[in-house]
């Protein structure tokens, strides 16, 4: 037929390579098996995620932004239902988030105005982080950490609380401190049951 407007590709080792806005993203990949749970690198990665979750619960987004590297790629593909063996389960060329530091900083700045009505009154948030496992990369100052996340979000007193379930893969890099250089969020729903994503995962 005709030339494609977009590439149809499956999920590779780093989703950033397929994302429309992932050109700038670091490409580091995991090396080897899961690190033992008593490995210092796993312990620090796990603690990093838990500490971060408390910042997200409290909507301390200024502090949270400081945990992201300048070249961060923060991406959340749109998941689609496809037949077994199709080779992809994300919507080609479309994401919910496909962010760099600038666009994330605008989102954070918006929450810091007095007029972000969607979070005034604020949601009651709980980011549950579990199934954490850590991998080495071929650089000492880079780690890959995977986690499962369940966000519970309650607003007001009429509607039921909403939840979002997702799996994440993060690239952590040691700069002046450990930071997130890449985050990929695989949401487990094709149709999101939450009124908006005015939150971070």
């Amino acid at each position, binding site marked *: *037929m*005709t030339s494609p*407007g977009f590439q149809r590709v499956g999920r590779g080792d780093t989703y950033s390579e397929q994302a429309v806005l992932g050109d700038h993203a670091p490409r580091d990949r995991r090396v080897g098996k899961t690190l033992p749970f008593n490995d210092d690198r796993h312990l620090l990665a796990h603690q990093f995620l838990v500490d971060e979750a408390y910042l997200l619960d409290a909507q301390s987004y200024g502090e949270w932004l400081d945990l992201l590297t300048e070249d961060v790629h923060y991406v959340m593909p*749109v998941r689609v239902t496809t037949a077994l063996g*199709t080779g992809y389960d994300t919507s080609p060329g479309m994401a919910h988030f*496909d962010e760099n530091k600038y666009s994330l900083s605008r989102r954070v700045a918006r929450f810091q105005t007095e007029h972000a*009505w969607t979070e005034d009154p604020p949601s009651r948030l709980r980011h549950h982080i579990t199934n954490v496992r850590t991998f080495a990369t071929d650089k000492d100052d880079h780690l890959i950490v995977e986690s499962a996340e369940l966000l519970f979000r309650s607003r007001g007193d009429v509607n039921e609380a909403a939840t979002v379930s997702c799996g994440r893969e993060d690239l952590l890099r040691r700069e002046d401190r450990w930071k997130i250089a890449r985050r990929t969020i695989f949401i487990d729903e094709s149709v999101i049951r939450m009124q908006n994503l005015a939150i971070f995962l």
Partner: protein
Amino acid sequence: MPELVDVLAAVRRGMIPAHIYNDAEIFALERERIFGRSWIFVGHESEVPYEGDYVVRRVLDDSFIIARDSKGEIRAMFNMCLHRGMQVCRAEMGNASNFRCPYHGWSYRNDGRILGLPFHHEAYGGEQGFKKRGQTLLPAPNLASYNGLIFINLDANAQPLEDYLGDFRFYLDYYSRQSTAGLEVRGPQRWRINANWKIGAENFAGDMYHTPQTHTSVVEIGLFREPKAEKRKDGATYWSGVGGGTTYKLPPGDFRERMRYVGYPDDMIARIEQVWTPDQQKLVGSDGFMISAASCFPNMSFVHNWPKVQDGDDVLPFISLRTWQPINEHETEVYSWFAVDSAAPEEFKKNSYKAYLMCFGSTGMFEQDDVENWVSLTNTAAGSMARRLQLNSRMGLLEDDTPVGKCLLPNEFHGPGVAQVGYNESNQRALLGLWADHLEHAVEKASTMAVGTYTDGIEPLVQTANLGARV
């Protein structure tokens, strides 16, 4: 429920009985009298660019497979096996030459025809018992496209899509025709909101009044080059037939200067000049209006806006298409697509997509505050007090129905329909006026449809996207 005739009369006066935003009886009527006989947007031809590509889309509860066959023809087929009613396709997109029902194994070609059914001879006595030759899945009762935008109508006797869209096509072209190559459409993002479907359609149709209040934060963070929210009252709203929308007033300049002002590069402007009519260009170049949000009755909406996507003064325009698909009277599934001219430079496509993600869709910063309002409105409309309240939707009218402002003259606004400058709710009234017209008239007995036989598959879509012209 209060008498329907009283509800409709109030709506036509611009006084909206609040319960219509959360009322099961009203929704039952909408399902039958609006969604049962209106043209409903389901997707774009560029979403199935290759032979065998398909997407599955719903019109309320009815699921349709929209597939491109090996000859490049597009069809829409009701996604229900002729035998026991199982969905023959349970994926939402993919590429397949045929679909096999998982229940008993009946299979269908991507042009709708039955390909095979197990034990046809033994179980049915072959063609004598069940004539499978030429039998197809049920076709969509009515299928048509405009600029590649595919619509389904559940009424087989509906007026043709072109007639339905009428003069609103003048405005549709701004969003869907920026070169001979046509749109490239990506997505949709899909999410559910606890809000009635009409609220979003009304908002996008004409609510310039909410921008300075609801979207203050987006202006404060410098997403726009200038504090635009306050400038909304300088824009014009227009309504023409089944649709209408809002515009921004642009600074002085000719057509090219004004297109550059909102971020279009010169090569795109040159292609646009080849396809927009002189009047379509005059609306921008002479009248100084740039289209922004719009809605097409009943539940399709559009966005065109031009934020900054990085530090600096440069802005980038983006286009988004969407539908407000009702689940019930208080829940809506939003389908939000990103659209860009397929002949645009790759760098422009990337930045335009970024602009879309920052502003609209599931994570868009405009969107976030809108939905918060609409959910609250829908909750509050459920109770008995809401049945006693008529919401005032008369902005722009004096008590005796004299307009507050004046309509723009043809040499001030070169588009069809009625246009006026400043805050008003005439578009919302026009949309709900159509809503009232539809609810007023009962549907004739739903046309039953015998399973047909088509030797070449069911009737294909007359395509309008001109995908072949892509560069």
